[in-house]
């Protein structure tokens, strides 16, 4: 957990510095009222203080709490799922929301979870019917469509 904490402290420090730098040109005080950079300045300051507090507390902690990350197989499954989701988002403008979602469901069930074909097809059909019924037919939300009009 020590390494994780150091990374969190470093990430928070960088993010807070980014907020400070990103709002550097904005006024901290404008005439008689706090300006646009007022809140970002204080949020970033608190962020930097917390990053330093976590860094110092982790340095002082000799407990050696084990890290909280999954094994290699778990990480591969999580990365595969995330890649599948981003791929789905990229495919939506090309093939439509429903088609991209169908492909994603099949990829997840057959490719990542290694589930049998027929139950996977059935589960995908149920999900798509639900999405179509609730969001398109009932709520009338215009989901992006592909070349086949779905």
């Amino acid at each position: 957990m020590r390494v994780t904490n150091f990374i969190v402290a470093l990430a928070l420090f960088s993010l807070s510095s980014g907020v400070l730098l990103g709002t550097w040109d904005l006024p901290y005080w404008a005439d008689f009222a706090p300006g646009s950079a007022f809140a970002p300045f204080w949020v970033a300051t608190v962020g930097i203080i917390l990053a330093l507090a976590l860094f110092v507390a982790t340095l002082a902690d000799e407990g050696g709490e084990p890290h909280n990350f999954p094994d290699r197989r778990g990480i591969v499954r999580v990365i595969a799922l995330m890649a599948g989701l981003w791929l789905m988002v990229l495919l939506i403008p090309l093939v439509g929301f429903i088609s991209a979602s169908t492909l994603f469901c099949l990829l997840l069930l057959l490719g990542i979870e290694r589930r049998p074909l027929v139950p996977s097809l059935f589960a995908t059909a149920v999900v798509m019917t639900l999405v179509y019924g609730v969001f398109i037919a009932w709520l009338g939300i215009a989901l992006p469509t592909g070349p086949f009009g779905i």
Partner: protein
Amino acid sequence: MDALASLAHGFSVAMTPTNLLFVLIGVTLGQLIGALPGIGPSAGMALLLPVTFGLEPVTALVMLSGIMYGGMYGGTLTSVLVNVPGEAASVMTAVDGNQLARQGRAGQALAAAAIGSFLAGIGAVTALAFLTPILSAFALGFSAPEYFLLALLGITATASLGTGSAVKAMIGATLGLMIALVGTDPIQGTSRLTFGSLELLEGIDFLPVAIGVFGIAEILVSMEQTQASRAVRTRLRDMWLTGKDWAECRMAMLRGGLVGFVIGLMPGAGPTVAALLAYIVEKKVSPHPEKFGHGALDGVAAAESANNSAAHGAMVPMLALGIPGSASTAVLLAALVLLGIRPGPMLLTEQADLVWGLIASMFVGNVILLVMNLPLAPLFASVLRIPYSYLAPGILVVSLVGAYAISLSLFNVGLTLFFGMVGYLMIRADIPRAPLVLAVVLAPLMESSLRQSLMLSEGSPAIFVERPLSAVLALLVVGSLALPLFNFLLARRAARRAGVEEALSHSSD
């Protein structure tokens, strides 16, 4: 008497066929969401919020709140039958509930939890009905400094009253404040931290953050390993408490309900802390503390009564002040804003139908949940036999459709995935996610009231301690920040003393 008359009017709103149907839908979804490990009520509410866009505000809110307290009941099933908490607030139920199930007493554990949740729920809604108007009338005297301090207290209390590291909880809240800074400055109209992106000019919506940080992140965690849990079976005829069981549980239910309601009122504490505290209190007063951890029915009853009572108690500050006390009420508050309703002390007078209809619907919802969790519990338990891998694609697709539906933009879908990754990393780094979501919701109120206060005082921070009420709130904020430090020092002193005693015992050996 006013409250009783208003409540009677609330029943006339809640008992319309449409609202009754959506109470039923809400509590059923809540029961299922609570029962499914890997997705909690806050995530479920965030995912299903877009479904309510076509509904009347009161109908939408009765459904969403049904998911919130339905989740408290549903979490028991998985805790008792599978030994995996369906949602965080059921973690203490899993300790004794599953031990009871292994001893062949799953039915009694589920019955004690259902009856305890019901009685505590009804008690808490009754208290909510009487307390909300009083607090709301009191809050009419609040001005900008009080609002700033109240919102700040909502965030700092999350850190000091939470179960994990206070520094990490504050880090979660700071990340939420940073997210809320993105967009156009609400007072001066200049763009902040948008880095030239037109999509970011309007800021980051609450829903992509909530859906990502709660929904997607939880699915990612559950994907780390193949879900292969086996549920202990239970039968309808076992779902009953004997006279001895009832005698063992009734005071635990009362104590759990009281502890839960008080904890629920506090900003930042929520049902998980309530269940934990009620369990500890019950162990202290129980005539058989040695049974705790090995199958104590009163432990199950106390924890479950407390979490349901806390879920209802958290509605008091949300309805009376517009300040959410937990992640679930933060989603409810966001729903109010999305439905075009301004939260705050005026809500009770401006939207009396909505508030009283919502409160009355909770009485109805708790009755439906009692039926679902006593005679129908074995039916819901059968849902646990569906492999989780068949449910995950549906939850993910509905999450992304919901994110798209907010503004019909794929940018929001991408943001949802981004926040899903952020939420996953937060879970793995042990950073609580509720403070982040609370901070995103509270940040606009915090910033505008802070700047208005300083404008009124011409820059003097003394405005935050000039009025007695703001001075009390400022003291509470300082106290909530000092509490973790105090706990840390106490723990260090205890560790040092234990070290000295150990050294002394070694030297005497």
